[in-house]
Structure formats: structure tokens, C-alpha cells
């Protein structure tokens, strides 16, 4: 507001003194410091207003007390209260009025003691509640008068907890906020006061004052007008309206009339006298100004405002000694007024006493670090005392406070977007190609054996176009772009397919596509549980896939991970199943060993050999692994951080309401920092209470023991979990290599050698046992190098044959005449749409997890409660930062980013969910069946519309061509990655002939709605 004032040109007829005043931060606040602490309603007065409480007649004591209070007859009131209390020692209203009277006499501590007696009455009847609310409200007045503004705010807050519509409590809270210069909160409080009592003149006036402090003088005037309409005798409203007129430098209105009126209503109104003095001095009527200031000081010899104003008048006359004397008095009357120190600084400067001037300016900027006038004054004094370094610092500060406006002609600098998380991808080794091709041949030989055995005719080899589309979808999860399609179809090298496979395995698309697969298997969610966010884990999975971390290593890291998710993101796996150790073991065996032992969690497995006891033996390996720790843990070498931080938290200066609201967030952040995966050696598993078999008794202790393959050996110094991880990922484990080899085979061919891939039974026979054995031996030979393994599979003839076009009866084994025909997964469909529509669909990436974890990750041994609370506030801003990037990539409410970059899970009505993406609650719960809403999405969804809009990728590709035939070809090559045949070209040409440009739109729309688009042949 100060700057507004400086920049507005004062009317000529105001003398220069005004300009000087304004420059020395005579803000609006200095003009008007009077606040209205209003008369307060009391219990029966309020009760009488409620019609349904009619049966209670007004309490004569209360009626009389209200009158006494209005007349300020404090001693009488105290006397009467004491009399009433003698007869009725628990009468709450009497304590309230006695407190009010003591407040009136200035005995605020005595008042507080009276109010405390009201709080002892805990009843919930309306009168007791009203008494408590009134006592809290009046106690806020006591605290306010004592200068304890925070306590005043809290006391009003307690009143509002009793009665949410207590208008005076809202008003009192607002007034206390003003004292703390929290103007927005003050305005909200006055709004509520007015909401609770629309005839509350003082609340209007106070709200106007708060708006004035924010520089909105029109609102000051509007609110004072409203206040005066409700109460024409509210002197302070006249004074405030005048102050706003002066501050606005509004020459059309006359502030004098308002000030005169205020003083007529209240001749002892020192603020109004000071304001009128200012006005007189501006008009050059100095004797009158002096008279008003003299009168103000006669009424109140400690009127800081009058002293200050008088001092400034002396200062303008260069009467420095008198000025300093006045400022001294102003400072004595009102401590810590930065404006008074600044003015005194200038007075000292005028006397060339720069040491003292610097002292005063320094004190002023300590009190208000944005006080430009003080910096300016100090820089001048530094200059005069030859302190160039200090002078430069202050001038720099001034520049910082008043940055020059940006030149309008300069090009607007693009707003910087937050960082993106990018994976670093690693491809397959060129040198291993010959052995990969040899292995592919061996697979084809083994597949061929079953062709012969079962009399299967293999499908013909795919065309280049079919292969291209399929391999892009299988490795990168999207159809190729028009350019990629053209490039490959033009290639003539005999090994072009092998090269393409290598190229795609090295691309970032691999990590994106396989992340989608593993997120489905691992039930990845962005909130792994109530306390742990998943992004570090999510990005760790992506990076592990991109850099081709061997599968056994990846799983071993997951299974042995300890600590906090930002220190070791692999703990995300255990955090996902926090507090569900039995389910976790069930999931682990299913995901990594393709075996379901879950039935045995509650009873012996009905069809497999697992017993319930065996399940518990397996679960015993990881039962001691917990996902959080308590404050007593030895890692907290100092005091229990729970205790220490809570003690410190109680000491942080904040409002009670904030303290309560923030305490949840505070505890949560502390909890997040205690989500440490660790192993508790003394935590042992016992059989359930209802254990019903004879081989053990209920609640027997169970020792860890593996029940598949060879026994796991727990070495000295090792946790059972580490032993389990070694056993799990060992090449000797009979199902670890088998499971991953089978899973990846299915990813390429559409059907596993053993189905379902995560429900391998003792009696399960692979379709081709020799082939399965070979595949398993290959993944072992490759030391679980998944990209190398997939390279082999994609190089086989069987993968490169046409997709199977005949129905294989349910339950019949599939002998791989070619890959199975598959519908695109939800993610493949979504990502393919983006490829067609968005110029660079890979541009958007999620935010690096460390941007958040660097803020929320704290050292509980050393962090202070204040810093922790600040960290919590800062973490809330991170979402905003992420939103800033997202906003640039949103089309009709949809974030245009690869499926692997989107939240997990997405909402139920998202394209991905409609097309079968899992809600990530269960392992591998995605689906590829159709539905009507899916088709509606394809017909009319936002992405379909986007395809047809100017500047979509496909639009650009089409418009670059000139002839109809070329344009049709581009459409086919972009959507189906093949050229149209003659009949299709003819049909397309007819359509374009009929509909012209719109015809191309119809072609695009129709082609994305073909089954050919949605299925991977």
C-alpha cells in the first residue's frame, strides 16, 4: 500500500509536508489505529433472541448488568455480581459480568481469573454453553488489552468451539489478527462476524479497516458507509472514512467533515484529533494542527500517534532537537514502532549524528525488514560515514524492494518447468547377436517338434508391416509413428528385423511398456500405504528395467531392502503389503515362483500338497520384517524423537486452531520418517488360535522352512529374510527361473508354456516340456538378462509368424502356429492413440521423486519441530509444482502422457480403466475384454476428437501430402502401419470425393475404430 501512495500524485494544493509524511511510511495503519472491541452479548440476551427458548424469562440480573455495563458503572456491577454469587455461588453469568467489569477497570488478570471459574462448569445445556462462550470471548478482550494477541485469538477460537455463530468472538478474533498484521485472516473473521450478525456495525467498520491495511481504500469507505447506516453514532467509522479519503488523496470528498463529526460524537477521540491535525497541516493551517495535537496530548499524554506527528512536524521544520524529543516520547508510549525509529533516525541524520541515525534505522529494519524508508536513510548515513560496502548492501536491498518494472518490449522468458524423471536406458550387447540367433533357431527347432507331433501347420511369416507393428507394441507399448513405419518399410537389409529388435530394446519405450506390465503384477500404487508414497519405488522399477538389471538381482534387492523408501526405493515392495506379512508371503510366492499357496493361509490346500503349517513355515522367513519403527528404536540414539518433537511442537508459537490442524500433519510427517523397513529378530510367527490339524497345536511357534525345492540355510549373522532372498533367486530354485522364462515367453507369444503363469501346479505340464526346459536354461545361462532373453524370443521364426486366426478350444493346449492374436492392453491402446495424436507423446515425464523426498526426508535425531512443520508446509507446495507441468499437457481435462507416467491407479472413468487397466488392488488384474463404454470412448472420446483437430500428429502428416492417394496412404501407414490395398484405396477415394477434407477425418475416425487397429496381429 505504501508504494501505491508514493506513486499516486498528490494534488497540488496539499503542501509538500504530506508528500514527506507519506514517504516516511505514514501508512494507512499510522493514520488510524483505533479498533473497536465491541460490547458483548451475554447469555440471556442471546437466549431471549431464540424464539424456541421463549419459556425461559429474561434473567433480571442479566438485564440490569447489561445496563450497568453500557454506562460503565464497573464498581456497582462488581458489587452486584458479588451479591448474586453469595446467594448462588455457581451462577456463570455473574462471573462473566464481574470479569467484564474488571476488564473495564483495566484489571485484566483479575478478569481472566473470573472467566476461569466459568470454564469449570462443563454442562452442555444452552445457558452454560453460552456462558462459556461469552467468558472465552471476553477473555480474548483481556488478552488483547494485555498485548497477548495470540492468546486473544485462541480464546476467541475456544468461544467459537462452544458456539460457532458467536459474532463477537469472530470480531474479537479478527481484531487480534489485525494486531498481528494478518489481514486476510482478519477479513475472514469479520466476514463471519457479519454472517452471524448482519447488523453488526462494528464488524463492518473493522473489516473496512483491514481492507485499508491491504490498500483497498474504496472498500474501507464502503464498509464504513455500511457501518454508519447500521449505527450512525459510530464515531470510529467517521474517522476511518476520513482516513481513507486522505489516504486515497481523494480531492472530491472532504475528510474534514467526517473528522468533525467523529469528534462531535466523541470529543476525547485522540485518533481523530491526530488525523485532523494532519489534515490541517496539509492545508497549511499549522496553528490549528498544533491545537489538535495539544488537545490530544492533553487527553492522553501517552498518545504515541500525537507525539509522532508532532515530531514529524518539527522534523519538517528542521527543528531536530524538538523532533527527537517527540519521537523519544512516541517510542516510550508505544514500543517497537518501526516508523518512530525511522523518523528519529532522520532527525539524527539532520543533526549529522550518523551513528545514532544508523542505530535507529537498524532497529527499524529489524522490526520491519521491508521498510524501504529506513534502508534509504541508513544508506545515506553509511555514505556520509564512508562505509561503501554497507551502503551498497542497503542500496541493493532497496532495489530488491522496488524492482524495476520488466521492459515491456523484451521477449517473455518462458516459465521454467520443474524437472522430469528420465530413465537411462541400456541396450543389448551387439557381440551377443550370433548366440542369440543360435538360441532362436533352437527354440524354432523345439517348437517344430510339436508341430510334427500334433500335426500343426505353422502360419506364414509376417509381412514386414505386420512384424513392425507387433514388435513396436511388444517392446515399446505403442504403434510406430508414420516416420518410423516409412523408415522400416523402406529398409532392404536382410537383418533389418534383428536390428530393429536391438534398437527397440535399447529405447526408453522398453522401460515404459514393461513398467506397465510389472505395475500390474506388483499392484503398484502411488500411495503404497497410508504413510508411504510410491514414486521413489516406481522410478526405481523403471530405471531397473531401463538399465536391464538382471531379474535375480532386481528381486533380491526387493526382498532384502531395508530402510526408508527414499534411501532404498526397493522397500516399496514390502511397504505395499505393510502390516500384512502373511498376504505378503502369499504374493511373493505367486509373483516370483508362479505358485499359489494362499489357500493354505487358512487351511490345508484343497488340491495341492501345501499344508497350513507349511504356509506358516514359509511366512516365518519374512514375519520379522516390519515396515515401520517406533520412537524407542535404537537408531534414535538421542531422545525418543516422538517425545522430543511433541514437546517442541507444544512450544511453537502458533494459533490453537492451527496447532490442532497442523498436529495431524506434523505427526504424519514424523510417521512417514519412521516408515523404515527393518527386521525384528524377536518377532516370531505362531500358528493361528483356530489351528485344527494334528501335526501341531494352536499358537505353536513356527520356525522358517522352505517347502519348495532345496532348504534355505540361514547363515550366522543373516536375517531369515536374507536367507529367503538367496533361496528365492537361486538358479537352483525349481520355480524362479521357470516363472520368469514363462512370463516373458507369454509377453511375446500371448500364451504361456504353462498357464496361468502364476498358478503353476505340481501336475502342470508345459505345452512343450523340452522347450520350457530350454527356455529356463537360457534365462539361467544369461544370468537373468531379460533383454537378451527377449531378444532371442523376438528373433524366433515362431514369433515372426502371422498371428493365429483360428479358435483354440478352451483348455486345449496352444501349439504356437504363430503368436496368439491379442487385443492391445489398455496401456498399448492409450499409448498408441497418443502416438497418433500428440506431436511428442514422450515429452511429458513424471517429476523426479527426490523433489518431494528431499523435502519430507528428515533426520529425526536432529530436526527441530519448527523445521519439521516448515517441511510439511513445503511438501504441500510440491503438488503445485507438479501441477504446473501437468497443466501444459492437459487436453480437455486429460493429461496427455504415456500410461507409465500417469497416476496409479487412475480414476475409474479414465480411458485406461475403461479399457481394462487394473485398479492395482490385486495381482495381474488387468483385462482386455470389450465393453460398451470403451466403444463410446472410441467413437466420441476426447482423444478421438483430438485426432481430427488441426496440429494433431496425423493431421500434420496428412496435410503435408498433396494427392488424395498419398494422403490416404499416410492415414493407413499412421494408424494401421500398412499401405491400403486397392479396394481400400478406392473406398477411401470415394469418401474423399464425397466429403472433401472432412472425408479424411471420416477415414481417420473409421480406421481407429477397426478391430484391426485394436488387435495385435
Amino acid at each position: 500500500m505504501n508504494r501505491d501512495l508514493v506513486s499516486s500524485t498528490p494534488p497540488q494544493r496539499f503542501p509538500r509536508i504530506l508528500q514527506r509524511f507519506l514517504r516516511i511510511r505514514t501508512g494507512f495503519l499510522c493514520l488510524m489505529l483505533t479498533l473497536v472491541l465491541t460490547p458483548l452479548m451475554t447469555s440471556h440476551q442471546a437466549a431471549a433472541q431464540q424464539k424456541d427458548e421463549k419459556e425461559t424469562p429474561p434473567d433480571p440480573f442479566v438485564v440490569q448488568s447489561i445496563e450497568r455495563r453500557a454506562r460503565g458503572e464497573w464498581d456497582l456491577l462488581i458489587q452486584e455480581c458479588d451479591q448474586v454469587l453469595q446467594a448462588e455461588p455457581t451462577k456463570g453469568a455473574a462471573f462473566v459480568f464481574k470479569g467484564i467489569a474488571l476488564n473495564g477497570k483495566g484489571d485484566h488478570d483479575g478478569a481472566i481469573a473470573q472467566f476461569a471459574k466459568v470454564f469449570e462448569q462443563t454442562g452442555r445445556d444452552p445457558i452454560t454453553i453460552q456462558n462459556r462462550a461469552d467468558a472465552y470471548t471476553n477473555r480474548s478482550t483481556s488478552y488483547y488489552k494485555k498485548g497477548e494477541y495470540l492468546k486473544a485469538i485462541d480464546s476467541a477460537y475456544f468461544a467459537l468451539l462452544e458456539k460457532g455463530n458467536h459474532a463477537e468472538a469472530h470480531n474479537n478474533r479478527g481484531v487480534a489478527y489485525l494486531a498481528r498484521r494478518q489481514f486476510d485472516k482478519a477479513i475472514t473473521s469479520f466476514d463471519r462476524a457479519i454472517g452471524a450478525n448482519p447488523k453488526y456495525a462494528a464488524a463492518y467498520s473493522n473489516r473496512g479497516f483491514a481492507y485499508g491495511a491491504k490498500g483497498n481504500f474504496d472498500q474501507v469507505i464502503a464498509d464504513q458507509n455500511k457501518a454508519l447506516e447500521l449505527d450512525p453514532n459510530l464515531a470510529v467509522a467517521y474517522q476511518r472514512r476520513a482516513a481513507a479519503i486522505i489516504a486515497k488523496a481523494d480531492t472530491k470528498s472532504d475528510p474534514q467533515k467526517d473528522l468533525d463529526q467523529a469528534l462531535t460524537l466523541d470529543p476525547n477521540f485522540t485518533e481523530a484529533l491526530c488525523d485532523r491535525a494532519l489534515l490541517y497541516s496539509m492545508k497549511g493551517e499549522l496553528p490549528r494542527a498544533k491545537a489538535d495535537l495539544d488537545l490530544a496530548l492533553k487527553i492522553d499524554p501517552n498518545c504515541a500517534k500525537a507525539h509522532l506527528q508532532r515530531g514529524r512536524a518539527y522534523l519538517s521544520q528542521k527543528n531536530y532537537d524538538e523532533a527527537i524529543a517527540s519521537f523519544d516520547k512516541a517510542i516510550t508510549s508505544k514500543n517497537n514502532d518501526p516508523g518512530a525509529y525511522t523518523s528519529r533516525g532522520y532527525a539524527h541524520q539532520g543533526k549529522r549524528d550518523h551513528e545514532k541515525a544508523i542505530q535507529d534505522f537498524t532497529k527499524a529494519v529489524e522490526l520491519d525488514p521491508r521498510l524501504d524508508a529506513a534502508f534509504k536513510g541508513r544508506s545515506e548515513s553509511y555514505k556520509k560515514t564512508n562505509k561503501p560496502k554497507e551502503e551498497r548492501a542497503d542500496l541493493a536491498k532497496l532495489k530488491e524492494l522496488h524492482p524495476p518494472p520488466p521492459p515491456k518490449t523484451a521477449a517473455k522468458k518462458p516459465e521454467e518447468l520443474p524437472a522430469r524423471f528420465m530413465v537411462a536406458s541400456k541396450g543389448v550387447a551387439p557381440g551377443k547377436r550370433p548366440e542369440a540367433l543360435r538360441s532362436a533357431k533352437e527354440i524354432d527347432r523345439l517348437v517344430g517338434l510339436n508341430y510334427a507331433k500334433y500335426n500343426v501347420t505353422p502360419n506364414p511369416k509376417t509381412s514386414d508391416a505386420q512384424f513392425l507393428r507387433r514388435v513396436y507394441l511388444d517392446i515399446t507399448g505403442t504403434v510406430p509413428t508414420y516416420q518410423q513405419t516409412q523408415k522400416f518399410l523402406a529398409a532392404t537389409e536382410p537383418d533389418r528385423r534383428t536390428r530393429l529388435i536391438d534398437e527397440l530394446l535399447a529405447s526408453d519405450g522398453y522401460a515404459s511398456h514393461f513398467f506397465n506390465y510389472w505395475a500390474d503384477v506388483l499392484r503398484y500404487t502411488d500411495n503404497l500405504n497410508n504413510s508411504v508414497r510410491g514414486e521413489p519405488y516406481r522410478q526405481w522399477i523403471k530405471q531397473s528395467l531401463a538399465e536391464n538389471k538382471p531379474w535375480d538381482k532386481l528381486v533380491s534387492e526387493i526382498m532384502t531392502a531395508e530402510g526408508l523408501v527414499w534411501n532404498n526405493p526397493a522397500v516399496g515392495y514390502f511397504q505395499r503389503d505393510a502390516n500384512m506379512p502373511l498376504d505378503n508371503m502369499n504374493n511373493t510366492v505367486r509373483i516370483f515362483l508362479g505358485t499359489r499357496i494362499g489357500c493354505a493361509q487358512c487351511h490345508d490346500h484343497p488340491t495341492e500338497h501345501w499344508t497350513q503349517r507349511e504356509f506358516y513355515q514359509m511366512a516365518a522367513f519374512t514375519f520379522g520384517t516390519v515396515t515401520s519403527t517406533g520412537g524407542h528404536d535404537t537408531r534414535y540414539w538421542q531422545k525418543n524423537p516422538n517425545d522430543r518433537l511433541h514437546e517442541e511442537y507444544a512450544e511453537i508459537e502458533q494459533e490453537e486452531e492451527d496447532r490442532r490442524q497442523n498436529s495431524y500433519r506434523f505427526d504424519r510427517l514424523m510417521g512417514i520418517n519412521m516408515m523404515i523397513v527393518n527386521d525384528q529378530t524377536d518377532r516370531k510367527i505362531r500358528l493361528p488360535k483356530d489351528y485344527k490339524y494334528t501335526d501341531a497345536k494352536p499358537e505353536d511357534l513356527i520356525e522358517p522352512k522352505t517347502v519348495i525345492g532345496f532348504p534355505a540355510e540361514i547363515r550366522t549373522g543373516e536375517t531369515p529374510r536374507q536367507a529367503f532372498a538367496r533361496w528365492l533367486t537361486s538358479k537352483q530354485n525349481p520355480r524362479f527361473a521357470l516363472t520368469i522364462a514363462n512370463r516373458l515367453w507369454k509377453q511375446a507369444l500371448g500364451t504361456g508354456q504353462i498357464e496361468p503363469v502364476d498358478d503353476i501346479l505340481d501336475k502342470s505340464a508345459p505345452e512343450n516340456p523340452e522347450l520350457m526346459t530350454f527356455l529356463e536354461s537360457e534365462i539361467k545361462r544369461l544370468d537373468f538378462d531379460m533383454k537378451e532373453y527377449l531378444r532371442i524370443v523376438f528373433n524366433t521364426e515362431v514369433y515372426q509368424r502371422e498371428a493365429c486366426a483360428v479358435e483354440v478350444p478352451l483348455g486345449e493346449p496352444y501349439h504356437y502356429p504363430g503368436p496368439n492374436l491379442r487385443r492391445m492392453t489398455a496401456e498399448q491402446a492409450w499409448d498408441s492413440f497418443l502416438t497418433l495424436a500428440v506431436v511428442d507423446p514422450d515429452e511429458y515425464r513424471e517429476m523426479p521423486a527426490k523433489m518431494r523426498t528431499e523435502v519430507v526426508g528428515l533426520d529425526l535425531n536432529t530436526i527441530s519441530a519448527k523445521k519439521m512443520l516448515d517441511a510439511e508446509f513445503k511438501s504441500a507446495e510440491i503438488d503445485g509444482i507438479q501441477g504446473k507441468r501437468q497443466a501444459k499437457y492437459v487436453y480437455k481435462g486429460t493429461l496427455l502422457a504415456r500410461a507409465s507416467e500417469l497416476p496409479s491407479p487412475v480414476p475409474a472413468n479414465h480411458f485406461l480403466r475403461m479399457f481394462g487397466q487394473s485398479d492395482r488392488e490385486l495381482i495381474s488384474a488387468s483385462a482386455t475384454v470389450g465393453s460398451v463404454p470403451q466403444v463410446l470412448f472410441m467413437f466420441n472420446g476426447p482423444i478421438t476428437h483430438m485426432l481430427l483437430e488441426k496440429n494433431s500428429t496425423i493431421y500434420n502428416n496428412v496435410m503435408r501430402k498433396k494427392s488424395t492417394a498419398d494422403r490416404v496412404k499416410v492415414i493407413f501407414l499412421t494408424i494401421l502401419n500398412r499401405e491400403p490395398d486397392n479396394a481400400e484405396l478406392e473406398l477411401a477415394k470415394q469418401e474423399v470425393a464425397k466429403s472433401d477434407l472432412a472425408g479424411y477425418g471420416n477415414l481417420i475416425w473409421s480406421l481407429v475404430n477397426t478391430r484391426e487397429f485394436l488387435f495385435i496381429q
Partner: protein
Amino acid sequence: MKTLFSKLGPIDRRQFVEYAAKSMLGVSMLPALEQVVTAQTATGGKAKRLIYLFMNGAMTHLDTFDLKPGHVNQGDTKPINTSVAGAQISQFLPNLASQFDKLAVIRSMHTQTADHEAGEYLMRTSYEEIATERHPSLGPWLQQLQGRQNKTLPDTVLISAPARHPGAGFFDPSFSPLPIGDPNRGLENTTAPQYLTDDSFEKRITLINGFDKKFREKFKVKKVQSYTDFYAEATSLLTSGELKAFDLNNEKNEDRDRYGRDSFGQGCLLARRLIENNVRCVEVTCGGWDMHSNIYNGGALPARADIMDRAVGNLLKDLAERGLLEETLVVLTTEFGRSPAINYNAGRDHHPAVFSSLLAGGGIKGGQFYGTSDAAGHSVATDGVEPADFNATIATALGLQRDKIVFSPTGRPFKVAHDGNPIAKLL
């Protein structure tokens, strides 16, 4: 599928389940259309359709259906008389009070969990949430046990449901309910761009079929054919009048106002329209019941109760006037109750030990309270009802076979209302 099952022994059954799991890929839901089961149990079975209203956040029982006048716990809520002599409910529910003869109010619901998510899940599925299985909610159970009913519209529609709704659970994804986020917007993606005329829509469909001919001739397999069926369904939905069922603009403004212009009010109106168009199950969620502070003076409770009262009151009235209430079961429930003692912040906290729910229509005997809570509204006093019992009552009213075991793809056995017992007095 049903008949096939009963012939299979336990081992074969497991194999069949595996086949079924495999066949999840690409089996159209159309064949199930013909199987409409008429099996009925001795009582109940009058209801053909279900409207399930969920008060999300936990509805306070003391301020709605289970008042304790005179008790210190009651707070500011006053009782009012209803259309049934001697029966009183909250002053905030005048519409429901005037139709109390239609309502059966259970005042003795109880559960173990005070966690919203766990409570919602249990109430909707009758099972506790576990990490290894997803249980189906009631609508998909209806479709599972009685076959699909509506050829063009989905059998279950969820209005304003939370994303974590269990939906079809382990059933075939084709059983998935259709989610509607905003009832005012209805079914999304049904409006073609303005430049597209009806004529050009048909032309486009012809183009699709022309370009797709070769592919479909080559791949004559079920998963492709079923997609072609869905395209046909979607096309007929878009061109049929049934789409209008989703469009509230077809309602008169005064009727929309009557239900309340909030999302629950409009959701209930949409539910009525869908039921009229033979959708079998509609669930509408009403959020905002998790009131921990300042419930009376802050106005949150009266406002929320008013939203519920207007919407449900008008829904019942309309269904009755249209003669639909006899065969439409209306259920109103919540995940748990709220603490009888008013807390320091003038609110009520989570309280699973006793709470209230409501049944109406569908052959339910109205005008009665069932079960009681103790004088403080704290615990069950008589005739405790657990979520599974509540769902068993719903299932019985709908004529569902409660003892019918359906195996999940993991081979575990499940029943529509777990092991709950229906409340005979209400049926």
C-alpha cells in the same frame, strides 16, 4: 454356467474355474443374457431391482434414525412424529417421516472397523478386504446369479462412487458396473461432434466395416467377434432412445429442483430414470457425512440431512406413484455410525458399535423399526445386525440364492452375502 457347475465334482470344478479364468479373455457377455433364473426362496424375492444409497463418511445415527431424546448425548437434534403412530425420527428428515410407513429402519447395525475404507468395503461386499482377493459388490452379484437383464444398458450403474469401489470384484470384467461421475453429465462420450450429422455417423460405421472386412474375415475368433458385438450394442445405444435414460435434461426443472440440485439429489433422480428403463442396480453415493466438528452450529448436519431427506423422500414418492416401489428395493446404508458423545469440537467421531440403516420397497415390510441400541446410543441392545446379515436381507428380497457358491479364479468359494442371516421380520 450355472447348470454346468452343478454337474461338476470338486476337482473338475477347480479345472473348470481355471478354464473360466482363461476364457475371461474375449468371452462375450452376451450368452449370459438368456439365463434368467427364477429361483426364489420361501420369503422375499419380490424385488427385481435395487437402488443402493451409500452415505459416505459414516452417517450419524443419533441425528437421523435413532434419536435419544432427553439423553445428554442427543445434542441439538429434536425428534418429530412420523406417519406411523409412536415412531419418531429426526426433525431434519420431514420427507422421510411422512413416508415412514414405507420404511424399515434397522437401529442395531454393528461392525468391527472404524476405518472408512475397510467399513465401506465390508458393507458393499460382506467380506473383509484382503490383499489377495477382490470381492464383488451387490450389482454384479445380481448379474452373476440371475443373468444379464438389459440388452443395451448395463446392469449396474454407479453414480458418484469412490474410485476404490469394489465393482465386479473377481467376476468377469464384463460384469463391471458403469461409473457415472457427475449425474448432470450422464453417460459420457455419447455426444458426437456437432459437425457430424446422423447421416454421416452411419456413413462412418459403413466405412469401419468396409476397411475392417479383410481383418474380420481372417480372424473369425470370439474375441474379435465380441468386439463387433459391442460396436453393434454401442451403435444401437447411441441411436436408440434408451440413451435418454442418462440425460437429466429430459426432466422438468421443477422435478430436478424437487430432488435437490446437489449431486446426490440429481443422482437419485438419475437412479429413478435408469430403474424405469430397466437397469437392474443403481448405486448412488452421498459424501460429506464425516463430520467431526461443529455439526449443529456449523450447519453441516442439517444441510447434509436435508440433502438426503429431499432426494430419498422424492425418490420413494416417485417410485410409489409409478408403481415401481413394490419391485424396487431401496437401501440406504453407511460404513458405520458416529460416536454418541459429542466431542470437544462439537462433532461426533467414528463409531462402529451401533448404527442405523434403512430398507424400503421391494416387498420389505415398512413402518417399523428393527433392533435397538442402548439408552446412550452406544451399543446394540437387541437384535444385532452385521453387514453380512444386512446384505443377506437384501439378497433374499431380491430372490437371490444365498447358499449358491461361486468360485473366484483363485479357486476360493464365495457367496452373495457371505454367511449372513436375513432378517425374517422385515421380509
